[in-house]
């Protein structure tokens, strides 16, 4: 999520008056937050210390593999003076205290968690520490200067006082929380920038980690749902006599989302579902096939229906220089997280409880309350580990479905999507097309950069849903959709990464044409950057070749001398030994800013007898101050693997409005044998930390396309790419 999107959401929420601004340690709006017991020392919403000294951090963000729990624990531990391995954690409940201060939702996205929370969490730790020290002062009669907090204890300099935090809890909980704290200077850090042990690693290696799929309230049934293959159909009729006769089958009924088949366990439910005949209402109009969608995007590029999002005039005359132009296209993509979507619901006296791995638990709560027709406060969300998120779990369609099923049952129920359901009912990264041109001058200058982008708007669809959770529920859907339609005209999620072109070209214009499709769209790791980086950095490469320059030298020439882009380019070029690839090896380079971080990558391929193979990927990132170096490296590598899976294989196609792919055989991912070695360089920085979950993804596809051009002389402008 880029700054523009967040600012927009903030403006909407402020206009709606639904949310208060500012960081509240106690979370005083809405219901009071009750966690733990009266005997605990709970200086703020995030932290509590139990009488036995157990420290528990409420993690306000979803853990989907990006290491956010470890990062947050590290930040708190640094100031609290407790070793990170001695801090327990819990997934925070839905509460205004845990709403993202920028996004106004309790949402995990936009690679924002550490950027937004790093200072807050250090204050959380420091404030607790100083209050514990104040308790020790009261207990010992010594002054602040005589006491030091370290390793979960407060000791006096002379050794006469040595109190564990557990011993200080009874006094600390009665004191006013010390709010005015000084954070430790960087040269005293013990763990920030160094701590490299994931705190969730043990639970994720012995099978004990609890994902949404593992929720199992007593007496829980399992449901599967037969959805309409096209996205605008509803159940017209169904026949379930044979299914109902099968052992273990409890019920078969229609919901607004499809026909639910409920049984004692997944296997009987799935077997019975195979025996149910469903008639759906026929598909409506609109663009329903991949071929017609591609043609519509091409036609849009030929038209004039564009909204300008950036227009810096050129000083050079329009007819000067050599005109270079190209068209690019990218397909729909699925998230294909390893854990198929699921959710579990138990009805309560006045509402329900939902167990789900969600990137947006307050959105899940809003959706559940609407389906059940109860106030939001009557819904309790138990957030779980996410078996991959990548943006998919920011939607709550699975929650709406399970509540609609639970509504009809007397027992709790877990809805399990099959892999096929997951592949065919995603909120997809949209297919997009781009037309781009520029003029190359004899001296290497570039002018009249014009990038036109055509494709469906994600936010036209998603913002109205998100706003449902941000605004009072009495505000009807119409105005929310109106905002979505308005934003869709210049959707920032369609143009991010193009609009902010960092090169000092003479005249830059970027414009967008929204081409709506009746297919659900969503945020896919790096969102708009996932396609704009491919187009922009491929075309920059084309311009370098048109100017007769080395692609790295060309980029450097057009970037400000002290820019972050140049720093990461230089770092990755050194790591990759740019320009000196061994015989038979070819390199491609790309640099891209996203989520306030800057990443450059070099992909190296070999070409032997016409066969091209990935050999190595080099990456350099500037993400400001690194908290956990190993996690940053893993996020870069993971983001690159994610991008290369898409760049080499990813393509969701539609026929008659339905998705044709179904499982990992026809939507393949990179495997162990396909993944080349990688090298990641973390560029030194003491600037505030910025995103790492997504920024590794955007540069990989263009770096690969540029390497393929170097190897074959053929410019591929359409994803997925062919190797040789």
């Amino acid at each position, binding site marked *: 999520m880029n700054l523009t999107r967040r600012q927009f959401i903030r403006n909407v929420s402020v206009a709606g008056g639904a949310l208060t601004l500012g960081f509240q340690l106690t979370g005083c709006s809405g219901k009071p937050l009750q966690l733990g017991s009266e005997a605990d020392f709970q200086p703020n919403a995030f932290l509590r210390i139990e009488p036995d000294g157990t420290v528990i951090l409420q993690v306000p963000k979803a*853990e*989907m*593999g*990006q290491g956010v729990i470890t990062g947050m624990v590290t930040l708190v531990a640094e100031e609290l003076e407790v070793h990170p391995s001695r801090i327990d954690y819990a997934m925070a409940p839905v509460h205004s205290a845990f709403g993202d201060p920028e996004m106004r939702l309790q949402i995990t996205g936009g690679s924002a968690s550490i950027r937004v929370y790093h200072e807050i969490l250090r204050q959380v730790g420091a404030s607790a520490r100083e209050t514990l020290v104040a308790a020790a002062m009261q207990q010992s009669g010594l002054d602040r200067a005589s006491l030091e907090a370290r390793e979960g204890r407060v000791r006096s300099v002379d050794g006469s006082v040595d109190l564990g935090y557990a011993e200080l809890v009874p006094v600390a909980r009665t004191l006013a929380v010390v709010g005015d704290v000084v954070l430790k200077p960087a040269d005293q850090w013990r763990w920030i920038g160094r701590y490299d*042990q*994931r705190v*969730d*690693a*043990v*639970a*994720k*290696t*012995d*099978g*004990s*980690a609890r*994902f949404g*799929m*593992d929720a*199992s309230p007593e007496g829980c049934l*399992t449901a599967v749902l037969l959805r309409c293959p096209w996205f605008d159909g509803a159940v017209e009729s169904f026949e379930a006599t044979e299914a109902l006769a099968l*052992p273990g089958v409890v019920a078969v009924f229609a919901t607004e989302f499809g026909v639910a088949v409920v049984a*004692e*366990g*997944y*296997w*009987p439910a799935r077997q019975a579902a195979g025996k149910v005949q469903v008639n759906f209402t026929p598909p409506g109009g609109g663009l329903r096939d991949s071929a017609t969608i591609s043609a519509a995007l091409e036609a849009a590029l030929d038209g004039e229906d564009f909204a300008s999002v950036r227009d810096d005039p050129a000083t050079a005359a329009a007819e000067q220089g050599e005109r270079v132009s190209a068209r690019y296209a990218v397909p729909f993509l699925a998230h*294909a*997280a*390893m*854990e*198929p979507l699921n959710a579990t619901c138990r009805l309560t006296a006045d509402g329900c409880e939902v167990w789900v791995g969600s990137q947006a638990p307050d959105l899940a709560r809003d959706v559940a309350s609407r389906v059940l027709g109860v106030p939001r406060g009557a819904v309790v969300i138990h957030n779980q*580990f996410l*078996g*991959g*998120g*990548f943006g998919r779990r920011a939607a709550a369609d699975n929650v709406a479905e399970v509540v609609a099923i639970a509504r009809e049952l007397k027992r709790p129920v877990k809805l*399990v999507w*099959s*892999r096929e359901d997951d592949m065919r009912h995603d909120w997809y990264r949209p297919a997009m097309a781009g037309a781009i041109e520029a003029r190359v001058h004899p001296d290497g200058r570039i002018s009249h950069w014009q990038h036109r982008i055509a494709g469906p708007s994600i936010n036209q669809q998603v913002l109205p849903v998100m706003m449902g959770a941000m605004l009072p529920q009495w505000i009807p859907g119409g105005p929310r959709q109106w905002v979505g339609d308005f934003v869709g005209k210049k959707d920032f999620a369609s143009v991010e990464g193009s609009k902010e072109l960092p090169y000092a070209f003479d005249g830059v214009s970027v414009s967008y044409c929204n081409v709506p499709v009746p297919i659900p769209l969503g945020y896919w790791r790096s969102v708009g950057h996932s396609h704009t980086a491919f187009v922009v950095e491929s075309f920059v490469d084309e311009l370098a070749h048109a100017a007769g320059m080395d692609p790295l030298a060309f980029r450097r020439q057009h970037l400000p001398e002290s820019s972050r882009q140049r720093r990461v380019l230089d770092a990755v070029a050194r790591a990759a030994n740019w320009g000196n690839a061994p015989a038979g090896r070819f390199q491609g380079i790309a640099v891209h800013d996203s989520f306030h971080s800057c990443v450059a990558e070099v992909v190296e391929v070999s070409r032997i007898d016409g066969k091209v193979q990935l050999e190595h990927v080099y990456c350099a990132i500037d993400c400001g101050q690194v908290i956990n170096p*190993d*996690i940053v490296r*893993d996020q870069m*590598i*993971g*983001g*690159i*693997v*994610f991008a290369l899976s898409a760049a080499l294989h990813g393509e969701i196609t539609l026929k008659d409005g339905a998705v044709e792919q179904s*499982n*990992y*055989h026809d939507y393949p*991912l*990179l*495997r*162990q*044998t396909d*993944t080349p*070695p*990688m090298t990641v360089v973390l560029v030194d920085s003491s600037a505030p930390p910025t995103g790492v979950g997504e920024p590794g993804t955007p540069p990989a596809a263009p770096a690969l396309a540029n390497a393929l051009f170097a190897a074959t002389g053929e410019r591929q402008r359409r994803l997925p790419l062919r190797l040789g």
Partner: protein
Amino acid sequence: MVAFSLNGREVELEVDPETPLLWVLRDHLQLTGTRFGCGMGLCGACTVHLDGAAIRSCSTPLSMVAGRRVTTIEGLGGSHPLQHAWVEHNVPQCGYCQSGQIMSAAALLATNPQPDEESIRQAMSGNLCRCGTYHKVQQAILSAAAVAHWQPAAEDAS
């Protein structure tokens, strides 16, 4: 009635013998460490051992394990050298596929205690990881293989 050995303990179940072992483990025995990923043996998230060999439990009917030894991630006990190596190398990201990765790796080391990188890549190519932890998986296996005192049969000793 189907009887088999599960993590060193005898179990008897009145379950449709066509039910895939995965759902017997998860729904009937509450052993949720074995994960559902694809249902077609394509992703490896559901990998367990049958008589010491790695199999895909989503595509193995219960009838096939009658009278045989099944070991799941819970049966490795948490102190298997691979589990230590996994933690030491920070292998898991989201963690969902890791039970299957570890079970595939354990079956590899049982037959090939000193695998080279290429054997590891080949043996692990049936286990998908959407987070892209493949390098770490490789490093952790190499590091566990270097633990000289490890007895490959230990997993069934319980």
